[in-house]
């Protein structure tokens, strides 16, 4: 009920009453080229991400959620519409939008855990010397890898590699953290642990993140706000609040209701289309 009320206030009162949006998309159409075709990934998508939002892009495969994330990352220029961060249009990749990918190979195999976390700080010159090393150690302690600083990535488990990737992104203090299905390649137990850890980290640091997932449960658990997209091409289906839900109330009725509601939003379309 409360969640619904906030959603109404947010949409009715517009952004003026809320904090100014950190990231905003207006009429965002994205296309990418395959050797034979031009594929429209999303079509006129609007959304606003507020500071400290845990904004989730949710949808079936082919709804362009990863394309949106790539566009925010600066890897895919919009063909129509605007995409702005702090009021500036996004034109190229940059360290103010650190990305965490699903693949484990995002870590540089030729650097240790500490070296990986230091890499963006040193490469951009944003943090140097002692300060960079202290920041790296601090963030590695926070993700529970304080004892593994001198180990090379190939010696780590999947969950640990993902923690390094998250630590590396967080250490840069980006304006927004972009996460592309970061836990999809993990086993169920590790995934749950990582979700809890990510939320605990958010409780400490209150960073803004844009999180792509295809799991309804993960979207509700991790997200404070969920953008539901329809497939082929991706269009906005709904924007919902999920701030009230966490692993502690996953078995309560309200959680089930929201889950069913999203399920209906995602799959009724498919039925109607058929």
């Amino acid at each position, binding site marked *: 009920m409360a969640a619904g009320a906030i959603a109404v206030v947010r949409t009715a009162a517009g952004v003026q009453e809320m904090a100014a949006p950190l990231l905003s998309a207006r009429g965002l159409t994205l296309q990418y080229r395959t050797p034979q075709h031009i594929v429209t990934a999303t079509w006129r998508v609007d959304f606003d991400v507020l500071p400290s939002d845990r904004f989730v892009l949710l949808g079936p495969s082919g709804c362009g959620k990863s394309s949106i994330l790539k566009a925010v*990352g600066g*890897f895919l220029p919009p063909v129509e519409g605007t995409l702005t961060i702090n009021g500036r249009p996004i034109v190229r*990749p*940059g*360290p103010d*939008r*650190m*990305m965490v*990918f699903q*693949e484990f*190979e*995002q870590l*540089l*195999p*030729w650097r240790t855990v500490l070296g990986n976390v230091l*890499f*963006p700080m040193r*490469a*951009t010159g944003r943090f140097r010397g002692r300060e960079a090393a202290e920041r790296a150690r601090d963030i590695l302690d926070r993700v529970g890898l304080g004892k593994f600083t001198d180990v*090379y*990535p*190939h*010696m780590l488990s999947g969950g640990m590699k993902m923690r390094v990737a998250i630590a590396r992104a967080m250490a*840069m203090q980006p304006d927004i953290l972009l996460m592309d299905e970061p836990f999809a390649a993990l086993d169920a137990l590790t995934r749950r642990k990582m979700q809890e850890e990510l939320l605990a980290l958010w409780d400490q640091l209150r960073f803004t993140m844009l999180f792509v997932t295809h799991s309804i449960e993960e979207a509700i658990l991790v997200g404070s706000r969920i953008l539901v997209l329809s497939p082929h091409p991706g269009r906005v289906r709904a924007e919902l609040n999920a701030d009230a839900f966490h692993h502690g109330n996953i078995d309560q009725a309200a959680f089930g209701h929201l889950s069913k509601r999203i399920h209906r939003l995602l799959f009724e379309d498919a039925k109607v289309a058929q």
Partner: protein
Amino acid sequence: MTAIDLSARPEFERTPAEIGAEGAVERPLPLWERAWNSAALRRAVLLTLLALTWELYARIVNNPLLFPTLSETLEALARDLQNGILIQRTSTSLHVLLLGYASGLAIAAVFTTLAVSTRVGTDLLATLTAMFNPLPAIALLPLALIWFGLGVPSLVFVIIHSVLWAVALNTHTGFRAVPETLRMTGRNVGLTGIRYVALLLIPAAFPAILAGLKIGWAFAWRTLIAAELVFGASARQGGLGWHIFEARAQLETATVFAGLLVVIVIGLVVESVIFRVIEARTVNRWGMQR
């Protein structure tokens, strides 16, 4: 036939028992197994076996003009080492080799940088490699002699030719094989241009680059020795190839063998010491290659 009641099995919980010493999670391998795990030892054993075979066979043949024994060869080697001829000729060869190898690598770096940054550069490299890679470097020697005359510049020219294409081809293939996620990781932090190549592409493609360096080294070494054999006769300061050629002319077969042995030993040292150390410190340590 009575139906089995699946719910009849009782549930239970238990705390794991303490494990004793015999159930320890890890224990050391036996000594001989650890020793046999060392590549150096295995290779040393193989080398010793080969040396023994040589000595035995040469003694059976008993024809020092055609096939001297290992001990005769080692004697000739020691003699030439003592009077300094061999050391001087080896250093002449190595000097030319390093000059050619380094220049070849530098030119390969330029070509590869062009190839990764522009499409025309890629085509240029692909075309040139397809044309010149199959061409034996030694076939260019007559041309080199016409252009540069007898001496070091001709040798360097053919060595560059033998190194350049192998290294450029491997490096470029390595660059193209760098995973997209890794590339995006680099671009995400704003790396572009030469910094992108140096900080991301080169380490990420290092296994392929190292393979190219090894192939280039072997090509360079064999091209050099062959070139010295062909025209070393009139060079003032001969190298190892000339040393071998000279000994053959005087029918000192043991000295020919000694010269060949030096060529082989230098090849072995570079391959299994220098490149081995580079490999152990980089690609093996990074888990990119086993």
